[in-house]
């Protein structure tokens, strides 16, 4: 037996980095794997299926400290927002204090360099600044990108002294409210500095599972104690990167590097909603001309959901063909959806084949497996708006 899909990571020869919670993961019996240069828990002894279903039923706790946390500040919030808008197609100027927005860095061909979360921290949090979270695998490039383009316009601080955990699931809000009742006031896509049972944290009501929940930034020195406090709640179980991936795929959320890359633009990636009207019209971000042209002409391919008809999962890079055998696209993420008990996937197909219900074939190990274009998310989002 041999594993056919090893986890690849940049700088695979370099020694692996660890998060503040590494020893705790090992103590909890996690299976550790290299991911984006870090030694991370892919699963705990209960296994990916159980961890996945627990998150959908109760509350899962994820260590996402490998991701990059960045603080952008300047003379005024408007100055910072305006500066960041030169790199991203989102409307940051319109953000209210405490409001969070999903965005991405684009390049001159409108390719997606990384996707990210931006929160305008409120006046109650000291100054009015931006708290940004970027992907682990891209964070060094993102930081260099910010420094190269914005260092004369705002202060860029990498918050390397902070850990980040995600508490996700229908019971996440109740669990977190037991530590900090005020957290219940946060709505989906908003954030605030809070004191959670003695720990100073930055919490945003957001996540990567489709469930209600929080991403919580905590000082490295407090990380283990804070996480142990959360894990002491009987509703909370630790969840690894394996279930994180199956949860986000069921939720139809993109994984940068798979579903969105520097070779995909936001229009074909079906992320037009993340480019607010003013920015779509006015441009002023890298690749704006291409985005505007794509919006006017329609993209030649689209990111879609795919439901294989049988039980065989179709993995990333599986070719998608029409019934004549012509290649019309490729799967970018594919696997098994534990909440659905069946395989699910997403990928890109030529626009002519992108309508929901369109029948396609997936070429798995030389066999054409029937599948259909399907609506996403596969599992309904349960955000608390």
């Amino acid at each position: 037996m041999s594993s056919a899909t090893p986890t690849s990571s940049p700088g695979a020869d370099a020694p692996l980095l660890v998060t503040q919670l590494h020893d705790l993961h090992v103590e909890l019996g996690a299976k550790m794997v290299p991911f984006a240069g870090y030694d991370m828990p892919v699963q705990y002894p209960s296994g990916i299926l159980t961890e996945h279903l627990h998150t959908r039923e109760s509350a899962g706790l994820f260590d996402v400290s490998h991701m990059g946390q960045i603080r952008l500040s300047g003379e005024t919030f408007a100055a910072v927002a305006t500066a960041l808008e030169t790199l991203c197609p989102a409307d940051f100027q319109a953000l209210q204090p405490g409001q969070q927005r999903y965005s991405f860095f684009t390049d001159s061909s409108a390719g997606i360099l990384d996707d990210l979360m931006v929160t305008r921290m409120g006046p109650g949090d000291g100054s009015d600044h931006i708290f940004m979270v970027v992907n682990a695998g891209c964070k060094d490039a993102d930081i260099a990108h910010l420094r190269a383009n914005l260092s004369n316009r705002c202060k860029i601080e990498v918050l390397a002294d902070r850990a980040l955990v995600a508490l996700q699931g229908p019971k996440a809000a109740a669990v977190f409210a037991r530590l900090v009742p005020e957290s219940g006031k946060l709505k989906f896509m908003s954030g605030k500095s809070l004191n959670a049972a003695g720990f100073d944290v930055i919490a945003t009501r957001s996540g990567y599972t489709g469930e209600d929940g929080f991403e919580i930034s905590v000082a490295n020195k407090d990380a283990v104690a804070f996480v142990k406090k959360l894990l002491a709640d009987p509703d909370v179980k630790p969840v690894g990167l394996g279930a994180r991936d199956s949860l986000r795929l069921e939720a139809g959320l993109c994984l940068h590097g798979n579903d969105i890359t520097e070779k995909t633009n936001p229009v074909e990636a079906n992320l037009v909603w993340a480019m607010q009207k003013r920015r779509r019209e006015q441009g002023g971000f890298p690749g704006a001309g291409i985005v505007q042209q794509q919006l006017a002409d329609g993209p030649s391919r689209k990111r879609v959901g795919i439901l294989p008809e049988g039980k065989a999962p179709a993995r990333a890079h599986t070719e998608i063909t029409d019934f004549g055998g012509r290649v019309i696209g490729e799967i970018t993420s594919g696997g098994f959806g534990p909440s659905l008990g069946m395989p699910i996937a997403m990928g890109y197909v030529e626009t002519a084949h992108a309508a929901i219900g369109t029948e396609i074939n997936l070429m798995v190990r030389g066999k054409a497996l029937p599948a259909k274009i399907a609506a996403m998310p596969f599992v309904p989002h349960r955000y608390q708006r």
Partner: protein
Amino acid sequence: MSGIRFSKDHEWVKVDGDIATVGISPYAQDQLGDVVFVDLPAIGKKIEKGKELAVVESVKAASEVYAPVSGEVVEVNAALGDAPGTVNEDALGKGWFAKVKIANKAELDGLMDEAAYKTFCEGLH
């Protein structure tokens, strides 16, 4: 010969006459995690030792299962279609993959007995 034998690729074989029942070891299922699909060979398929016999899919990845002996597939474990998790629950029993009519019994000599395989797995840590 009787008893269970293991390959270095973590497949097992139990021989009854000239029929070998093949599956993956408890070590292998543990490494894979939750099995969600097994792509079994067609009955009648001629397989060659060391070449692909089946593909086992966990939530995370697809892995090839190699044939520990050459021969012809005479039966597959169709019950895995509805209950692939049986591979995790009972790897050495109900989680078997296929029965193969052995082409060359001498190939079995290269496989490990239970004690040798246990030592082999311990050496992997």
